[in-house]
């Protein structure tokens, strides 16, 4: 046990030394070495600390270590408080207080929007929720939960049916033949652009069959055998093309996130690239 303890202490020492070196390097203005004009003492510390946190998170790729634990726990604490503050100022002070009490509105210097008795509903439901702490009457919190779940179900039912069911069906009314000009023209142009009838017709066929079989794949009340089995197999194949294609399509987006972080390390911190 002693050996690993020593190694981890050694690593800790190295990290502290590097931290100090970077802080000084980023802060001082060395006229003779022609270093770029350093930042203020505080900014020097902040850049170094941000770089330290970035490297601690990256260290998780190697294995779980105390530096990742530090960054993780710090992130949890800071972010929980961040959301509480933003929630408090924007919703509680911004939406709730102006509608409930003039005194508080003046205290928080927010425009008073007139008393609205309906706003006591969320207040009561909110307090009911906090009663959850006490085991005796904790069950009362189910009332506020029921209100939330009712709102969700009511709003979503129509919204999903309207945008995701009905419009998707009408978007699939595609003609299976595109401006037919005889066989000659049909096979002449295999390019992707609008003049290629074969491609346009093929695309419409693929869309029609793909959606039809995709829906069959999700059918529950009939065993997937015979025609149904075949169609649902085609359906899962279309889904696989969808998943493979959208996976490959988003790789570029994910890689550019890493490019951004490494630019921060190489440029803002180490100044290696201009």
């Amino acid at each position, binding site marked *: 046990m002693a050996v690993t303890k020593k190694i981890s202490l050694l690593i800790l020492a190295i990290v502290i030394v590097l931290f100090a070196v970077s802080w000084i390097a980023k802060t001082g203005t060395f006229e003779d070495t022609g270093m770029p004009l350093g930042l203020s003492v505080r900014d020097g510390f902040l850049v170094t600390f941000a770089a330290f946190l970035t490297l601690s998170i990256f260290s998780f790729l190697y294995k779980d270590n105390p530096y990742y634990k530090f960054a993780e726990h710090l992130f949890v604490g800071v972010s929980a408080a961040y959301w509480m503050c933003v929630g408090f100022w924007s919703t509680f002070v911004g939406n709730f207080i102006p509608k409930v009490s003039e005194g508080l509105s003046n205290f928080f210097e927010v425009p008073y929007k007139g008393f609205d008795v309906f706003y006591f509903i969320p207040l009561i439901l909110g307090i009911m929720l906090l009663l959850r702490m006490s085991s005796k009457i904790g069950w009362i919190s189910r009332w506020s939960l029921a209100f939330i779940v009712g709102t*969700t179900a009511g709003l979503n039912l129509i919204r999903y049916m309207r945008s995701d069911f009905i419009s998707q069906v009408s978007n699939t009314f595609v003609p299976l033949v595109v401006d037919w000009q005889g066989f000659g023209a049909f096979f002449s142009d295999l390019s992707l652009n609008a003049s290629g009838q074969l491609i346009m017709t093929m695309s419409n066929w693929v869309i029609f069959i793909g959606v039809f079989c995709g829906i069959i794949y999700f059918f529950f009340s009939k*065993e997937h055998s015979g025609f149904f089995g075949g169609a649902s197999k085609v359906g899962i194949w279309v889904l696989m093309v969808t998943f493979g294609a959208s996976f490959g399509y988003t790789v570029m987006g994910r890689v550019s996130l890493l490019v951004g972080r490494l630019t921060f390390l190489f440029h803002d911190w180490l100044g290696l690239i201009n």
Partner: protein
Amino acid sequence: MKDYHRPQLLFQIFILPLVVILSLTSALTAQEQPVIPADSIIHIPAPTSNVVAVDYVYDRGETVELTWNLSPDDTIGGRIDGYELTRIEQSTGKMDTLEVIPAGISYYKDDKLTHGHKYAYLIRSVYFGAKSSPVSSNIITPSIEIINWRLANLFAIAFILCGSVIYFIAHAKKGKKLFIRKIAGLEAIDEAIGRATEMGRPILFVPGINDMDDVQTIAGITLLSRVAKVVADYDIRINMPVSRSLVMTTARETIKEAYIGAGRPDAYNDDMVRYITDEQFGYVAAVDGIMVRDKPATCFYLGAFFAESLILAETGNSIGAIQIAGTAQPAQLPFFVAACDYTLIGEELFAASAYLSNEPKQLGSLKGQDVGKFVAMIAIVIGVLIATLAELTGSSSLENLSEFMNRLFTIVS
């Protein structure tokens, strides 16, 4: 006539004529106001005609639609800039100029009115500051309509879908046997729990990062209750980090109920479900830490997931856990399909809780969903057929039919 209307009536008798005189005089004076520059005579554009104001139907009575004939000057390259709209509220006589509509456009929708008030509109053709004499519209009172008939097709389709779900639930209540095919993913859930019992390692359950106001989270919590039953019976350790406190209270309620059901209320402890943070990546960093340190045998990701889906799945894979995922976020399905052992795709997440409950009423609702798919398939086949024939034959009647099918399945807000 109710009493409180009388003063309004008097008011109208005196004020209305005053308003009309006022607007006429201002129109006359308006013409002299602009200083005529020396070098060119300012052309006064011809006024519009046939200005019609119509109440926009099926709304809360706050919107009026205004149409007019284009001014004779409004041709290609005609010397007219646009049309200046002025609204007059009849009861108070308040006049406010709305905006100048560019030439070539003859329609305007004014949605900042209050129902029951009377309004009239004046339109002047405008060209470089010179204005034509105003042409007034008819007086209009936007009214509330009780039923929004424009959404009749939405109502019909909603009626069919919800009706079929309710019918099959009632049908199942009467004890009729319903056939539901085996859903591969759901066996995987039982297997995964079995593995945790064998290895004696904990189960990690992640209900997604959205709050209780997301149906996917509710589906996740519903599945949690099925998993929690087995956890309570076999006394497996369950670890559930959550990123919303409402989900925390609900999940604790669900697990506690499972332990009471298993007759071991004392084995339940509130810390099985812990709130981490609302922040997406702060939460993911903590869950990754828990995974690597606790080394759960099985990980469940059931709910709404966003970019962090792959971070969870890859970390889970690095510790060799069986991973069952389920979400209705199409953008994240490719990552779960690639990285997890089994994925409930979209609708399967919602069907899973009904399937696992084995209650006839719940299974009935799955049948109802299938009716919806049946409707969709039939509509698509018909729609495509008509569109193809219309394209081939080019006959106008088929085109109208195709147009009708499109309108039937399009919801105008």
